[in-house]
């Protein structure tokens, strides 16, 4: 699209900029070196008059690109809210005058700093285009829900209620999942006194009655291809038929299995029919309810007179054999099951053996109610269950008496085993040599979604098989755009939480397909209309972009070129950072928008003793930390030039080599923590950057430069004191090792 480009620059004189800087000289720099003809200064750019001046230039003078030399891009965003033009902002306030002393001797370097930021802003704006939105959109408004348990049924009903059609796929012959195999559930509403109806039957009838919900039973997803707004799902049924459904987004509610109690022979499972897991107890309770009688002892059908509940059976296990985590719901579930007995007959002995009783929120009332009903709670760690005829002896360490203890003659022992997620294929699993073909076959049957993505057939997992997510601030963000996991596949949970989770995931799925339809990005760059484009002529098919994309957005076409699925892209730029031949770019963020800024900086000669230090800083954490340090007026080196980047993963090593080539003395990269407790909002960006930079030493050696000249730092947004210190220390180090010999070439 031919675009009539008209660039204008505006320099603010407010907040002390006018006093501390020679703004007339700055305007000359923008004109002469930045080559922007239209440069205006204003005493107070963000007031209504300043804003009106800019808006007028846009509306009546055809200005399409603006560069503001004022405060940080994070400040005054309400005033500088020009949505129809491309904009760059040179940070003269937080980036310059607030971090430099107001002294006569600092004046020269402060002015030089401001000049450079304007050169950079001018270069950036000229390399930018106003994003137009990804044209490769899809318009399906249908939601695919995989799994027909409580979570999946909730998702289906909530989506239909919002006005979106649903395709619901359930692998078994009936809806309801685990909840359908439960006698009753823990209440989620006042009064928290007694078990209540599961509500499953009502949900099933509501689904059956809803014309907007199409249900496939005995069915699995044989293949998923496409992208948000235009996914295609092949649904295979047990009968052999395959249907293809066009869907816009996916909620994966594939649930859990109970941890296999057969792995707990020391707790008597498998040795006596009177030792059951929580699922087994539900079955006994349902049978009793159907019969209209009491719960019977499996070994001989006699009424149960005493029950022991063993909490954390195969859970919270430090040995590494069983589940390391807590499943969250089991304390309340055992309380509920104890009430099955107590509510029917108060004379039945019920004992819950626990180490920590975990009944958060109003669960506390439910716990209290159980105590009132006479359920005994004993803090003890069970060591073994010994079956003996029709009863069992439960041995435990009584943690209150700090002594061995036992319960003799228990009619029934219930093991609270935990939830194991049904998350399909662990795409990071590497089979042993020789076993690859078998694993490939096996994958097809275990996979939940059978994604035909280059990066694997299921949503990536984080730990213990639960799907990856930023499980604090943004719990729904999986690493596959438009696919949201919900329920116990995401983390262990009870029915109440699963319903809430499903409702939230449904919203995210609806949002994903709505945004895909208008070519807009999903979280965390929601609303971003830029998208990656690739110049295939230059591509060498090295596959780095397809391998490294944290979101599986890039496949390979039949000719082995990268095939971008823009709607799957989260706009982090990791592909751009990965590309060795630099053919990937976004309209407003590219190798050029950053590279030209780096090159625009004026490099003083070797003898001036004015080093130049480039800082590439994550715009979400390191950059705000610098802004806040500036608000504290923390003095920082005048020799740094900071460029915010979308993610450290988007940093292309050419920027580093270009900087070194053009005479910068050092480069600092500041990104987020990576590893198991990663803080990168693009999951893998900072990790990849770190990996790439581990190779930069060779480049430096090639240049005959000291390896100290390029450093990568993990920086958090709270590092308001540390970041200036890192910079100042780095400056000191540059003086120690001396100026770069590459200046002036």
């Amino acid at each position, binding site marked *: 699209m031919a675009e009539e480009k008209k660039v204008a620059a505006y320099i603010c004189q*407010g907040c*002390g900029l006018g006093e501390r800087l020679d703004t007339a000289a700055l305007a000359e720099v923008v004109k002469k070196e930045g080559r922007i003809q239209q440069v205006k200064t204003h005493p*107070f750019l963000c*007031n209504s008059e300043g804003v009106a001046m800019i808006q007028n230039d846009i509306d009546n003078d055809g200005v399409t690109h603006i560069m503001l030399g004022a*405060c940080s891009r994070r*400040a005054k*965003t*309400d005033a500088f809210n020009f949505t129809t033009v491309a904009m760059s902002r040179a940070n003269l306030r937080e980036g310059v005058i607030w971090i430099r002393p107001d002294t006569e001797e600092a004046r020269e370097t402060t002015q030089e700093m401001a000049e450079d930021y304007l050169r950079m802003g001018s270069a950036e704006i000229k390399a930018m285009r106003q994003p137009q939105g990804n044209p490769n959109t899809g318009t399906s408004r249908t939601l695919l829900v995989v799994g027909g348990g409580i979570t999946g049924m909730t998702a289906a009903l*909530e989506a239909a209620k*919002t*006005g979106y059609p649903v395709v619901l796929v359930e692998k078994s012959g009936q809806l309801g999942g685990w909840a359908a195999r439960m006698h009753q559930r823990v209440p989620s*509403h*006042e009064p928290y006194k007694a078990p209540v109806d599961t509500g499953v039957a009502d949900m099933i009838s509501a689904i059956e009655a809803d014309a907007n919900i199409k249900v496939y039973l005995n069915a699995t997803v044989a293949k998923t291809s496409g992208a948000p707004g235009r996914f295609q799902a092949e649904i295979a049924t047990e009968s052999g038929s395959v249907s293809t459904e066009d869907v816009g987004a996916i909620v994966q509610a594939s649930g859990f299995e109970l941890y296999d109690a057969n792995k707990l022979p020391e707790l008597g499972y498998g040795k006596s029919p009177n030792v059951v897991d929580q699922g087994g107890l539900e079955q006994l309770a349902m049978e009793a309810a159907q019969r209209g009688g009491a719960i019977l002892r499996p070994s001989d059908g006699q009424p149960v007179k005493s029950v022991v509940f063993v909490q954390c059976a195969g859970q*919270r296990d430090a040995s590494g054999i069983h589940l*390391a*985590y*807590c499943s969250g719901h089991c304390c309340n579930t055992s309380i509920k099951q104890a009430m099955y007995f107590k509510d029917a007959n108060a004379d039945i002995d019920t004992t819950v053996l626990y180490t920590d*009783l*975990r009944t*958060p*929120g*109003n669960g*506390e*009332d439910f716990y*209290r109610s159980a105590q009132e009903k006479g359920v005994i709670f004993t*803090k003890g760690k069970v060591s073994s269950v010994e079956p003996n005829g029709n009863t069992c002896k439960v041995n435990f360490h009584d*943690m209150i*008496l700090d002594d061995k203890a036992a319960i003799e003659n228990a009619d029934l022992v219930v093991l609270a085993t935990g939830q194991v997620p049904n998350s399909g294929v662990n795409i990071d699993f590497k089979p042993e040599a020789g076993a690859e073909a078998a694993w490939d076959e096996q994958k097809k049957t275990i996979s939940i979604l059978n994604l035909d993505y280059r990066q694997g057939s299921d949503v990536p997992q984080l*730990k213990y098989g639960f799907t990856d997510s930023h499980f*604090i*601030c*943004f*719990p*729904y963000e999986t690493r596959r755009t438009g696919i949201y996991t919900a329920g116990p596949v995401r*983390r*262990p949970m009870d029915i109440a*939480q699963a319903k*809430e*989770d499903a*409702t*939230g995931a*449904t*919203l995210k799925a*609806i*949002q994903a397909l*709505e945004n895909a339809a208008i070519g807009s990005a999903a979280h*965390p760059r*929601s*609303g971003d209309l830029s998208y990656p484009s690739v110049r295939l002529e230059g591509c060498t098919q090295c596959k780095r972009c397809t391998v490294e994309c944290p979101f599986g957005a890039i496949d390979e076409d039949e000719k082995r070129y990268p095939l971008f699925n823009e709607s799957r892209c989260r706009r982090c730029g990791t592909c751009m950072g990965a590309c060795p031949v630099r053919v990937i770019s976004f309209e407003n963020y590219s190798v050029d928008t950053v590279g030209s800024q780096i090159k625009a900086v004026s490099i003083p000669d070797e003898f001036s003793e004015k080093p130049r230090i480039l800082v590439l800083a994550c715009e*979400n*954490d390191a950059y*705000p930390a610098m802004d*806040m340090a500036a*608000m504290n007026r923390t003095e920082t080196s005048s020799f740094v030039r900071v460029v915010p980047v979308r993610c450290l993963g988007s940093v292309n090593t050419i920027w580093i080599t270009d900087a070194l080539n053009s005479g910068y003395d050092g480069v600092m990269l500041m990104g987020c923590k990576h590893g198991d*407790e990663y*803080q990168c909002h693009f999951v893998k960006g900072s990790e990849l950057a770190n990996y790439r930079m581990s190779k930069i030493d060779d480049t430096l050696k090639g240049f005959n430069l000291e390896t100290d000249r390029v450093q990568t730092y993990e920086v*958090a*947004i*709270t590092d*308001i004191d540390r970041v200036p210190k890192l910079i100042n220390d780095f400056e000191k180090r540059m003086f120690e090792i001396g100026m770069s010999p590459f200046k002036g070439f």
Partner: protein
Amino acid sequence: MTEVVATNETILVVGGGISGMTAALEAAETGKQVVLVEKNPAIGGRTSQLYRYFPKLCHPICGLEINLRRLKSNPRIRLLTMAEVTGITGSKGDYTATIKITPRYVNANCTACGDCAKVVETEVPNPFNYGLNKMKAAYLPNKMAYPMRYVLDKSIIGTPDAERAKAACKYDAIDLDMQEETVQIKAGAVVWATGWQPYDANKIQPYGYDRFKNVITSVEFERLADPHGPTGGKILRPSDGKEAKNVAFIQCAGSRDENHLRHCSRICCMASLKQTNYVQEHFGDEGKSTIYYIDIRAIDRFEDFYAKVQANPNVSFIKSKVAKVTQDDATGDVILHGVNTEGYHRYATPHDLCVLAVGMEPSVKGANIPIEILADSSGFIEADPANGAFFGAGCASNALDVNRSVQSATAAALRAIQVVNKVARAEV
């Protein structure tokens, strides 16, 4: 005069903490019009006053920065700060809310340059630091504040301080004639996300919060560890500024107690486990933490975090409901008394500082929800058809941690969207 354009296809979100922001953003990013009302001068809520989150030990303002960017770039959200909903009438699909806006005395011209604060002499307690320090009566609520705009404390209006502030402002940003305003807006659905308040520790008499300076609350302890806090991130005890290297944490301070809060506040175990990390982070092996607990509720994957803290030899766990706290007047140390129920040993143990893991009380309780709402016995809003299109979110609906608050708020956003979609289709 504040102008707000809203119709009964608008979603009103009350409360600008993590839950309210999430509900507003998720709805707006799905294409809906939202009015977001926050009673404080800046949004962010209580999570912005935390130093780190469990279990990743990452910083809440990192997520806040993302949410602020989302908010700044979203034209569908109208934010009102220093605003409180004083009345709601109507029913599902057709509400009218009355909103009172308190004057900030600073208009949109403010550049946050800080010149006003330099000249103002009066100091007032800093609510962002729970009153642990004072700030100028012309202030930016915090470094991450959005709107990034100063506020004049009401106490200086009509005094020479206010005139000095006005005179110092080069941008005509100070308007001392600003008056309280009342606006009315329409909304099809309401998401009530007013969050929580720490249980009033003064009510737990035996723990001496009202008597001993070195008994503080868990939320105050967050501020001590935070570099933006009153001590610049140093853990210094209030009585004498001594480094608090031996810290006691009392769990269930007010929670799981029929005399105080009936419910378990869910977050406090994890919060204290997290805070033992602050002690370790600041003092290394010299830092000792003792957790007095009933049950450690490190639910689901948080168990890993608990296991890590248990493995730290500088952290001890004592299963005990602490009976009382006394003070050694000579040293300022606090002494915890009780019985360790594991083996029944009596103790009277001195510590530098005692942190009460205070419970979570819904802010809706006691405060006036201006419409009749079904709540549970603790005051949390119930999900009930009787509440029409008035949906509780986050800690207004249950004692929740951040991730579950976000879950709850996202779900509430969908429920609100369902209503306004019906309004749009004229089905309500």
